[in-house]
């Protein structure tokens, strides 16, 4: 019960800060931009070619579901990662920098408990943010092209190609993939959270996290590393795309999320150890 009170307080702090809302604003603008591009005739012609080349009917798949999927595919890893790293990198380091932590340390709460509360808040923020992007993107797409239509998925890098003509099935897959992206992005937040527990500036925690993510992403693209791609964090984080396969191969998904889950726990423990052994002078 006390944990819930503490979590409520942590979320209240998180959502009372303007920088938490920056991500929401940025995604809203980006969604509007993607929709604008989708409405352009040239863009529609390109999509028509793509869909019809695969023997599908353009009218069924030029839909709000397909646009929402594209928004999530294109934006989450690049733009989303910036805001997740920013919020998770701040959560401990900024409070230490501002001196708020010493007020909390005057309370009978363990450092582990404090970190658990903060980590839970970060995970909830990350997960809910992905759903915000999905839902807001979908509503904007509905306003632009209507509710009807199925879902067309094409992700060449992960070799996923699917089509769901039925709206309900497409929507269910989209919701499932949003949950998958949410879980994947928690790993990014965990990296930033770990650095936030170290004795560094909040901005440094954010920058180091983004550096790790982008270096991982770049190296993964090298042909030399192709046989080792499953060891790259960003490859594992992309496992959510497998939820879009016509026939979901759960073994691949469970393997990827078990890897990410183990990594998250390791990152949390490393952060906790660093935090636990630190001195916080008044």
């Amino acid at each position, binding site marked *: 019960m006390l944990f819930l009170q503490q979590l409520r307080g942590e979320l209240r702090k998180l959502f*009372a800060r303007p920088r938490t809302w920056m991500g929401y604003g940025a995604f809203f603008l980006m969604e509007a931009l993607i929709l604008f591009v989708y409405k352009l005739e040239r863009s529609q012609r390109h999509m028509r070619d793509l869909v019809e080349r695969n023997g599908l009917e353009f009218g069924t798949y030029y839909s709000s579901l397909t646009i929402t999927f594209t928004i999530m595919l294109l934006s989450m890893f690049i733009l989303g990662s910036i805001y997740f790293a920013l919020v998770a990198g701040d959560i401990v380091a900024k409070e230490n920098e501002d001196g708020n932590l010493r*007020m909390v340390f005057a309370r009978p709460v363990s450092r582990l408990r404090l970190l658990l509360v903060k980590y839970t808040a970060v995970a909830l923020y990350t997960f809910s943010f992905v759903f915000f992007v999905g839902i807001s993107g979908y509503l904007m797409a509905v306003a632009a092209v209507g509710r009807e239509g199925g879902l067309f998925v094409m992700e060449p890098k992960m070799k996923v190609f699917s089509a769901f003509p039925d709206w309900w099935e497409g929507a269910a897959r989209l919701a499932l993939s949003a949950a998958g992206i949410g879980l994947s992005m928690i790993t990014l937040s965990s990296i930033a959270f770990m650095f936030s527990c170290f004795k560094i500036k909040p901005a440094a925690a954010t920058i180091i996290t983004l550096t790790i993510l982008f270096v991982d992403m770049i190296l993964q693209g090298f042909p030399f590393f192709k046989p080792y791609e499953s060891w790259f964090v960003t490859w594992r984080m992309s496992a959510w795309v497998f939820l879009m396969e016509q026939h979901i191969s759960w073994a691949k998904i469970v393997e990827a999320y078990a890897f990410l889950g183990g990594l998250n726990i390791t990152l949390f423990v490393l952060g906790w150890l660093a935090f636990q052994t630190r001195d*916080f002078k008044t």
Partner: protein
Amino acid sequence: MLEIHGLCKSFGGKPALGDVSFKVGRGEIHGLLGHNGAGKSTTLGIILGMVMPDAGDVSIAGVSVLTNRSKALRKVGAIFESPAFYDYLSGWENLRILMSYSAGFDSRAARETVELVGLSKRIHSKVRTYSHGMRQRLALAQALLPEPELLLLDEPTDGLDPEGIKWFRDFILCLRDERGMTVLFNSHLLAEVELMCDRVSILRQGRRVFEGSVGGLHDDDLLFEAELDPWDKAAPLIRAAGGEIPQPGRIRLPQGSDPAQLVESFVRSGVRVRALAPVRRSLEDFYMELLDGAGSPN
């Protein structure tokens, strides 16, 4: 109530505390004095479990902070110099968040405490709009909400105006008198310590150089204010008794000497003794003597 035993701490090989021990009895207001870098804040940090000592232990009401921090701090409140609240939230929300890390938030108790510290009218305003004095009142409220038996004050009156300082002092004295609260008061405002504290511990370069009652500091049994006539006739008698004249009109006698015998010798030699009174020393005089190494009663 608070027992500090053999605390040692160094930062990056540089010693900050060396074998510091002292006790604070229940219902006592204990001043912790020292210059900047003497180790006051480090001591406070160790008491709150924010800093891990290299050696030694701290216990609050018999419970070790090092081995059972949560239990030891259950009845402790703390106020820091320039308390850092969440500026973008209201005072009330700050109290709610901070109390969630103690025993939980009780809005009735919070209302009473806010009323007590005189912040009722502004408690729902954002903390960023508060003056320094209002922040200190909010700090006091958050420290009092867990109904502490021990209150740790780290330079709480710094930056307050004279009226604010007086209000704060009276409030703390009232808490001690009415609730029997124990207070550890870390400050370098000697006048404040003198007015508030029952006992003091003085730190110098990470070592405790004095622990004793404030009342006992005032009377220097060996230093006297004297009005003698003539002084040039009295001076050889003073020196013969092993004493000295540290400044005109003052006599310092050696340990164990009896001033009555000196007066007798004055009278016998025809020196008129118009007045001879022990000098009342201020805490500042005593503190400066200690830090200058001029004398160590310990």
